[in-house]
């Protein structure tokens, strides 16, 4: 099976950007702003439907950053100062863990425009993975970040149960910290075992598809251990991963290839993306090919909407071409 989807927060459309700016200056009220968010969500959902994506998200426009809904929704977490979002000129609020983290309601549901998701399509949810959540938080309560990671994995387990009940068929756990070089280089093999175990806690018993999506770093750093992570699919940022090293490994489970670059406005040539994917797929699946997804390497929000939209069309075209190649 060869599919496609997005992997994170969408860029805001020009009209929405303007509304947020005038809202910040007090010139429109919260309901006008909400209407602008809903209109933009409709356009983003429609664009995914037009691009024939295998799974559709609501665009995550309400997410000020990947961690913010968890700061707002979890007990025991306070909002910290702005911090750089990995190696981007983009910032997030640091969660400060001041007490036992507690989930009193569905955090994902609160942050998502579920009513805007199309009925006849499969829905995808995206949540921060345990390791990344723990690494990006300021821990003032737990013994160490490992303990925090496991506590958060328990929260995720409940979140995944809840979104399954809501009808979602796929959950992506975003884990950039796992491969981001300044953090990942100090990651020991024992810690990788803990990461795997925390993922097991989060996805245990779920009936929907699960994926650990990595970005901003070389996936080869966590190989071969990542091959055994207890999820269905592994997401790889091909703009940060050494192709030749990757080809040395054999995979059984599915792979989501971050083939379209969300951090450069240059629109890719489908021919090249097809060639690259074919080469990698043929190397990493020496016997039986796993499920393959074509996706952006990270959140599309690093691009202006118009360019992100063009890249969605590239994803569609590459997916079609690959289906023909491997049929």
């Amino acid at each position, binding site marked *: 099976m060869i599919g496609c989807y997005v992997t994170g927060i969408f860029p805001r459309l020009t009209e929405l950007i303007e509304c947020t700016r005038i*809202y910040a200056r007090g010139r429109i009220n919260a309901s006008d702003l909400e209407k602008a968010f809903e209109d933009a969500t409709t356009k983003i959902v429609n664009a995914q439907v037009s691009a024939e994506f295998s799974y559709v998200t609501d665009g995550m426009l309400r997410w000020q950053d990947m961690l913010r809904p968890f700061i707002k929704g979890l007990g025991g977490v306070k909002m910290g100062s702005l911090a750089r979002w990995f190696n*981007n000129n*983009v910032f997030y609020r640091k969660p400060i863990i001041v007490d036992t983290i507690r989930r009193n309601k569905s955090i994902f549901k609160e942050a998502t425009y579920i009513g805007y998701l199309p009925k006849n399509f499969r829905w995808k949810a995206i949540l921060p993975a345990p390791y990344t959540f723990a690494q990006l938080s300021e821990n003032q309560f737990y013994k160490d970040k490992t303990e925090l990671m496991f506590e958060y994995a328990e929260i995720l387990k409940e979140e995944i149960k809840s979104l399954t009940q809501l009808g979602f068929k796929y959950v992506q756990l975003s884990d950039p910290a796992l491969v981001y070089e300044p953090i990942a280089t100090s990651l020991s093999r024992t810690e990788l075992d803990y990461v795997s175990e925390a993922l097991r806690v989060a996805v245990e018993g779920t009936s929907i598809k699960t994926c650990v999506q990595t970005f901003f770093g070389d996936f080869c750093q966590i190989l071969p251990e990542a091959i055994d992570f207890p999820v269905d699919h592994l997401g790889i940022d091909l*703009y940060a991963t*050494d192709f030749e090293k990757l080809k040395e490994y054999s995979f059984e489970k599915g792979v989501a290839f971050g083939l379209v670059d969300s951090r450069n406005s240059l629109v890719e040539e489908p021919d090249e993306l097809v060639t690259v994917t074919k080469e990698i797929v043929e190397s990493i699946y020496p016997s039986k090919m796993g499920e393959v997804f074509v996706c952006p390497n990270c959140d599309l929000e690093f691009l*202006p909407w118009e*360019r992100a939209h063009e890249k969605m069309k590239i994803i569609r075209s590459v997916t079609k071409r690959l289906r023909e190649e491997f049929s």
Partner: protein
Amino acid sequence: MSKLLPTQEIGSLAKPRWRIKGYRGKPLSKEDMAEAIDWGRKLEIPDLKELVKLLNERDSPSKRRGILEWSAIYAIRFFKAAGLDVFFDGEQWRSEMYEHVIRQTAGFNSLGYIKSFDYRYFNKAACINKPQYTNSFYLDEFLFTKENTEKEIKVPFTGPYTLVDWTFNEYYEKKLSHKIMDFKQRKFEAKKNFLFDLIKEVIRPEIKKLVDSGAKWIQIDEPAATTNPTDEEMRLFVECFNETVKDFNCTFSLHNCYSNYEILAKYACDLRNCSQLALEFANRDSRQAKVGNERAGYKEIELFEEYGFRGDYGLGVVDVHTNFIEPPKLVRNRILHVAKMIGDPSRIYVSPDCGLRTRFWEISLRKLKNMVSGAELARNAVK
């Protein structure tokens, strides 16, 4: 500088409303006019009637130019009134540090706004062709400042590494698309090509014009310096700084803020011809005027010293993101704390953390005056 513990600013100062609206050709309110006159009187600016006359004129290129000049005069007087030893013009001629350069350089195409955080955005451009120097972007403001002050001038200059880091690299990645198959490697090579072309074609020609016109000190602003904290990228940053400043008969310094100083410290002593590191510390420090070894905000100075940096520090003793007015004693204690750490007060230039463009002028003036008083207290203490 012969004076011990000289005081300096870092670059930007908020733009008055009459500057912003007037430059855009928008009508000014009574309050905007009153602001111009009030501050003009406070700063003892002569010929205020001329400014009022100009602001009442119809929009034209000469009116816009006139507004920039008046605004620069206000900023220069402002810094003088604060008692600073080294300054520029509050960057009154510039829209913003990134856009000002990109808009005046060929090869770039602005693509619109990208979210920075929450409801804040930045205008991001793509490099779509080899960058070309079309016209000078800092020379006029430098010449004007030079004419209007006897004080020492430090020209803030947006660095190439930051310009490249904040721009989509379309041209160079496309150029390498059939030459390097590995995307990661291609991205890095394309970045290097972009950087060194930008330095050669745009940055150095502008520096040459400034130096030929009498600039003695240029501060390279690189807020993105530690954005990519890998060894490979940090080496690239150092190489880029060294290439930018090489062979010019001029003093250079580096300003970097809200960054990872553990990383910068490792590479700082590889920066050639970098007389000063102007860094942000007050933001990291407590507001208590305590003494001793408890100034947590300044602990990373130790790292710079351990790694062998022996240049001067532009020591951030004023937080530019709060309206808290640092008392002179707090400023003094911060300076004395670092003077003791490095064992040499002559390596300290007393500074705010960064440019003051996010603060109202009333606040900025009070902060800077206290900074100058604090420096005086510290000077008396070390004499």
